[in-house]
């Protein structure tokens, strides 16, 4: 592992991260002012629906940018070291994959069909750490054992493996350089429930035994709770709530998070799930003020203005309801309900 500038600083701090894309229709504000912090040996889950910018956020952290970037600003600190200030070349050499690795979305379908999977897992070691091939292959075998792939599979090709096994290979590729942090983008979304449960078990084990840290990006709230220490909810390019998983799953604060939680069908409860009326706003010219206001059941006059980020018992929520104005509003609606 590379040298750390400060051991006291959290593993990853993301401050005011902005990633806008230029398209023929206008500027898409995919990531618009995202802040969060990740401690070592912690798993943060980023929950959001399609088009909310969660995958763009992962790409922005790893600096895997397409060509049509319009604006890319903000700061990310890795153990206190400002990595956004590094040059692209330096970032590629020292940070990407050596310290932050990723399992991209649909990774299991992105394996190279003409390379043996063992060689693919060994490749980052040879490229990023200049390791000899025989040594790198040994390490690959070790990783296979760790993620639950039979060792003799190193000589196989991707098409000879099932979806679950391919997904594990993709995970091994991220683990092999012993990074500080792994970003998982929808790691189990195309898999069967039993395979999914097995892979989540494996991730828990890796987190516990290796002290690995994760950012898990998903739309699947139920599965996300399998790994989450903290939860961040993303809506229309912004994080609207961040909090401790224990408290979040009991009582989400932001109206969008509340509605989203209520929309999850549950196996062990008979209560009917609800749905959220309407659609998320376009990220080209999103509304000024709160971006959820149009669909919000708790909306009031103040929501036309950009909501502040409020801290409440160690949780952050971006909503006017938790300001003094909002508290009055809530009391008013509460007494209305009682009448």
């Amino acid at each position, binding site marked *: 592992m590379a040298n750390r500038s400060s051991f006291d600083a959290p593993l990853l701090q993301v401050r005011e991260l902005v990633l806008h894309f230029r398209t023929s229709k206008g500027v898409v504000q995919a990531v618009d002012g995202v802040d969060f912090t990740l401690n070592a040996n912690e798993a943060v889950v980023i929950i959001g629906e399609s088009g909310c910018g969660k995958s763009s956020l992962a790409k922005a952290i790893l600096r895997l940018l397409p060509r049509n970037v319009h604006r890319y600003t903000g700061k990310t600190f890795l153990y206190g070291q400002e990595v956004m200030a590094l040059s692209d070349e330096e970032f590629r050499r020292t940070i990407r994959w050596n310290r932050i690795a990723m399992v991209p979305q649909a990774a299991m379908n992105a394996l190279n069909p003409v390379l043996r999977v063992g060689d693919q897992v060994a490749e980052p070691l040879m490229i990023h750490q200049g390791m000899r091939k025989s040594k790198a292959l040994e390490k690959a075998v070790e990783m296979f054992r760790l993620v639950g792939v039979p060792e003799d599979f190193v000589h196989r090709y991707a098409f000879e493996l099932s979806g679950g096994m391919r997904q594990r290979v993709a995970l091994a590729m991220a683990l092999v350089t012993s990074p500080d942090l792994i970003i998982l983008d929808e790691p189990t979304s195309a898999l*069967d429930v039993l395979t999914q449960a097995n892979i989540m*078990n494996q991730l828990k084990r890796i987190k516990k035994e290796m002290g690995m840290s994760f950012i898990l990006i998903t739309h699947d*709230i139920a599965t996300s709770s*399998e790994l989450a220490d903290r939860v961040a909810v993303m809506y229309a390019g912004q994080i609207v709530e961040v909090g401790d998983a224990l408290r979040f799953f009991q009582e989400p604060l932001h109206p969008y998070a509340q509605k*989203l939680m209520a929309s999850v*069908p*549950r*196996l*062990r409860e008979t209560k009917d*799930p609800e749905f959220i009326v309407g659609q998320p706003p376009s990220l080209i010219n999103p509304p000024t003020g709160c971006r959820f206001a149009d669909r919000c059941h708790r909306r009031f006059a103040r929501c036309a203005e950009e909501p502040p980020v409020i801290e409440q018992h160690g949780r952050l929520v971006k909503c006017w309801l938790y300001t003094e104005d909002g508290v009055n509003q809530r009391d008013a609606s509460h007494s209305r309900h009682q009448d």
Partner: protein
Amino acid sequence: MTQATADIKIDTTRDERVKPASDAPSTRPEQGALLSVRNLRVWFELRRFGFGHAGYVRAVDDVSFDLNYGETIAIVGESGCGKSSLMKTILGLHRPTEGEIYFENRRLNDFSRREMQWYRTQVGYVQQDPYGALPPFMNVRRILQEPLIIAGVKDPAEREARIRKALEEVKMTPVEEFLPKFPHMLSGGQQQRVVIARAMILNPKLLVADEPVSMLDASVRVEILRLLRALQQAHNLAVIYITHDLSTVRYFSRRIMVMYAGQVVEQGEVNDLLSNPKHPYTQALIEATSDPDAANAMKFREVPSGEPPSLVRPPAGCRFHPRCAYFIADVCDKETPPDFDVGQGHLARCWLYR
């Protein structure tokens, strides 16, 4: 309706089935079994180098069930368990290798082209991926017009009226706004509504929904499930709901069948089966399904490792035995278990209940 009366109904239809399958429609319409599947096998031949027999993929192996008018049934299973092959055979897209399918007491196996055309007006199909299921070069009006033209609705005014009615039923209003739109201009939820409208436009008696919400976002999912449920009730539709997600089953169907490796391993009434699963495979599925709860992060889930078997050479005996925690040597790996009744029509194909 209690399970007991349902059983009696199934029995009477069984008697009727003995009669030669004439082309006369059912003598008691809208009662009893709409669809009967009997010992259905769908095998696909494997060939070596394009010729030379190399075995069969036994996608569906001995499946039987009845579906009454207006009844909903969920078929649950993982990918490769044969649920899609079963569905496609019911839709008439695959021919049964063995066994029979009866629709209103008419034998599907020997339908002529004409009869097949009639059959397709009686059965609606809601695909999994709405964007893939809608032709990108047709607008909503043309998409909905197509089945009407094929079914021989000649009067343009009548077609237009039916298109509007179908769109109103799936709550795509104002209708004028949506008629000229192309699929890419619609959100995922709206696309799925168009797919449902298309499936419903010929007033089918049976709707086959193949994972209708798995491609949609959580907040839209429930909306589509509710819409399907409302349509089912309003039109007394029989629905086959195919899914891998156990947590949505209860909101939608009354009966459930769990499939594993081409066979139905357990079936019963939904709440009974979900709260009291008998087959080790069903138990594993339920154990593996999570509800959002922070406590999940603290524990490991007890799920069988390994993967479903090859359907070319499935394991002898019970097909789940290589992964089963309750494996009984010399029993489970020797003989195929029959369906054991574990109470009130709840059937489990497992030697534990002999």
